[in-house]
């Protein structure tokens, strides 16, 4: 029986568990006529994606909220758009003086 890479990586991941968030799924398949005797174990070792969950998704939620507020400028009413042009004209006239 040899040493595999799991021994090297999981030790360090377990020590840095706050930053790397390792996950483990342990399943057991029981024998046919028994509640206790196990036929097969399976383990899935993984690492939770820290960057997506704790950085990009909150950032995406913030951008969506800001966009919902800004969406109201595009109302579809042409008179509002003429009003915007009028406001910009007044401001530019003030700045040119």
């Amino acid at each position, binding site marked *: *029986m*040899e*040493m595999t890479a799991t*021994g*090297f990586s999981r*030790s360090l991941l*377990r*020590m*840095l568990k706050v930053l790397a968030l390792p996950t483990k799924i342990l399943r057991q398949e029981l024998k046919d006529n028994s509640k206790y005797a196990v036929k097969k174990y399976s383990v899935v070792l993984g690492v939770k994606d820290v960057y997506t969950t704790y950085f990009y998704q909150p950032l995406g939620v913030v951008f969506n909220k800001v966009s919902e507020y800004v969406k109201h400028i595009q109302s579809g009413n042409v008179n509002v758009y003429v009003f915007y042009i009028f406001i910009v004209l007044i401001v530019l006239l003030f700045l040119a003086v």
Partner: protein
Amino acid sequence: MISIIIWTLQLILVPVLSPLFVGIVRKIKAHFQNRQGAGIFQPYRELWKLFHKDEVESEDASWIFRAAPYIIFAVTIVVGASIPIIGTFFASRLSDLLTIVYCLALGTFFLALAGMDTGNAFGGSGSSREMTVAALTEAGLIFSILALAFLAHSTNLVTIVQTVSDLSLFSFTPIILAFVAFLIALLAESARFPFDNPATHLELTMIHEAMILEYSGKKLALIEWASANKFLIFLSLGVNLFFPWGSAASFTPGALLLGLAVFLLKVFLLSAGVAVLESSIAKYRFFRLQDILFTSFILSIIAISLII
């Protein structure tokens, strides 16, 4: 001409003296345990015995197994010749902080490979534990010496020794903090308590010993000698960088003899301190080691923040 003689003496100083300090640490631990212990020159006799023994090598061993002892021993000789031991001459590119740390890491790398080479499960477990501890120790080791490098405005170890010996006592608090951080890194890299028991016979508790389980005869002698060399290298870094008074600055015989005597006294005191520390704490569980290694890192960060 004189510098060649002095350099040759420094080259052979570390391998000649290192088993003596291992013997001193074992003797002090034996007295703490209420027994006589072997003499302080016993490691020399052990090395002599191992050099006169035959070797047994596994059929599955590759060239890494055969080459690793030579590489590990050569690394400790090179590093021992480059660090300031007796005095602050021989400043070179090799006596830089990162060069020394990563040369020693090269030795650790080949030791870990050799532990896995024969396919032995105990060697593999020792290698995985050693790599985990080494990955975490590196931060504390580099940052503790980096605190002194910020004081000296240079990462050259010789410049650090010269600068720290000229400082007033007022600026000593960050140096003591950095020394405690360095002491933790010293214990980790020399495989001493609380990281590893150097005298254990149980594979469950081995880190360094597990990787060298397959070695015998002359190769084992080289690896044991290299481990003693590494201990002396870390001891001399600890005393020369953090408490550098007494180092020789020139080639006059008086300064050299004084430098040698002061060096031996300081290293004896630090190795006695290590022996007392080893006798008073137990070996930690493997998954508690990250706490003490992160403490070493944080202490170095505090020392650096006090210096900047």
